[in-house]
């Protein structure tokens, strides 16, 4: 840049901290200096675009995991005994948190697929589909372990959700059942794909993504039941939107 004399003034102008005298000087300068005018306008556009970046929503399950860990570490008081039918809010939260820990351990198995050493080569990779390079047998064993963890988690969540689903209105309940059906079909299809191509990393990831979706939907269902029991309609409405 040929003209560097006004770099500091440009910085202050973009920050909004420039004084009136320096601002007047800069205004005179940029009227005659294309480089500085271009730089000032570009930096103002970058500042404005950055300020307009949206706030992202924290993931649905993050709070449950935090609450679960706080309880596990004994750092919070027991949940208030809001008895709602056969299970209390605290019981549901504890069940959900325990399930999350099981799921977390299932996910923990997964990274090993990509980084494990390759003593023997598995079957040839399908075109366009990354392949695991370990033995088919060892891959299948790890997949089976991870699936078991997911299934155990899902079974626990289903038990809690099903036994309390009467708290939901029929329409919401039907929407959740419909979405569970879609996810179940995806899980079944992906299981077939993994069985046919046990060395395909992509097939496994898709299967585990489907399993994870089911866990998330069930967690949201339980959270929804909790909110409806507490009469928190606004929070319940938010969860319905996420689950439908």
């Amino acid at each position, binding site marked *: 840049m040929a003209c560097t004399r006004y770099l500091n003034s440009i910085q202050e102008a973009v*920050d909004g901290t420039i004084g009136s005298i320096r601002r007047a000087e800069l205004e005179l300068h940029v009227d005659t200096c294309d480089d500085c005018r271009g730089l*000032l306008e570009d930096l103002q556009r970058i500042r404005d675009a950055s*300020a307009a970046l949206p706030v992202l*929503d*924290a993931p649905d399950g993050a*709070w449950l995991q935090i609450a679960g860990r706080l309880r596990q570490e004994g750092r919070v008081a027991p949940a208030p005994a809001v008895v709602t039918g056969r299970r209390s809010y605290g019981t549901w939260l504890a069940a959900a948190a325990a399930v999350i820990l099981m799921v977390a351990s299932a996910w923990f198995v997964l990274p090993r697929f990509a980084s494990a050493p390759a003593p023997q080569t598995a079957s040839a990779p399908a075109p366009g589909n990354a392949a695991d390079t370990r033995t088919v047998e060892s891959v299948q064993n790890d997949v089976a372990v991870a699936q078991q963890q997911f299934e155990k988690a899902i079974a626990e969540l289903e038990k809690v959700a099903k036994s309390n689903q009467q708290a939901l209105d029929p329409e919401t309940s039907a929407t959740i059942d419909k979405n569970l059906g879609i996810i179940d079909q995806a899980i079944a299809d992906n299981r077939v794909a993994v069985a046919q191509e046990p060395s395909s990393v992509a097939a496994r990831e898709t299967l585990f993504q489907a399993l994870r979706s089911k866990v998330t939907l069930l967690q949201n269902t339980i959270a929804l039941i909790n909110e409806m029991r507490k009469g928190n309609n606004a929070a319940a409405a938010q969860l319905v939107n996420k689950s439908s």
Partner: protein
Amino acid sequence: MPVTGQRGASMATSKLTGQGSVPGETRAAELRLVERCRNGELGAFEELYRQHSGRLFSLAVRMLGNQADAEDQLQEIFLSAHRKLESFRGEAALGTWLYRLAMNQLLDYVRSRAARTGQLTDGLDDATVLADASGHRLADRAIERIDLERALTELPDGCRAAFLLHDVEGLEHKEVSDVLGIAEGTSKSQVHKARLRLRGLLRR
């Protein structure tokens, strides 16, 4: 050409720290909430989480460049916050205190990740800064969010941290300096360098 001397209205008030929104009442409400958290009330901590998780998650995503790492670190930030609430005295706004804690956590994570992968990010040298300040302008079309988010991931860590806090989160330079433990002048310099680098990256 008229030079704007004021930042946009959305930037006039720190988005998270609530400066300017009846600080006394806000501070008193924060202290009451913190006291309930200290007493082990999970509902109070959930309230604190709901108030601040979106901004801290956004910060984590933009600092770390991916949602999975950000989600893990968000949990660590709030667990750490719960442990350290005893030390919160209300001298700074709760939001500023959380930003400081979050940034320490995120920068530690970034450094350990970089050490593991051998991808340490350098600061910006003067030649790069001058090159970004010169040359042709950005295209006339609006800056796309996706391009901006991608360019952010290419900034050196220190610049990115200061830029995110100042230009994205809307903290003042004084607050940025408090959060990052740097001089106010360093915050100004880092943010300016980051804007220039973004200009260079967005011109590609």
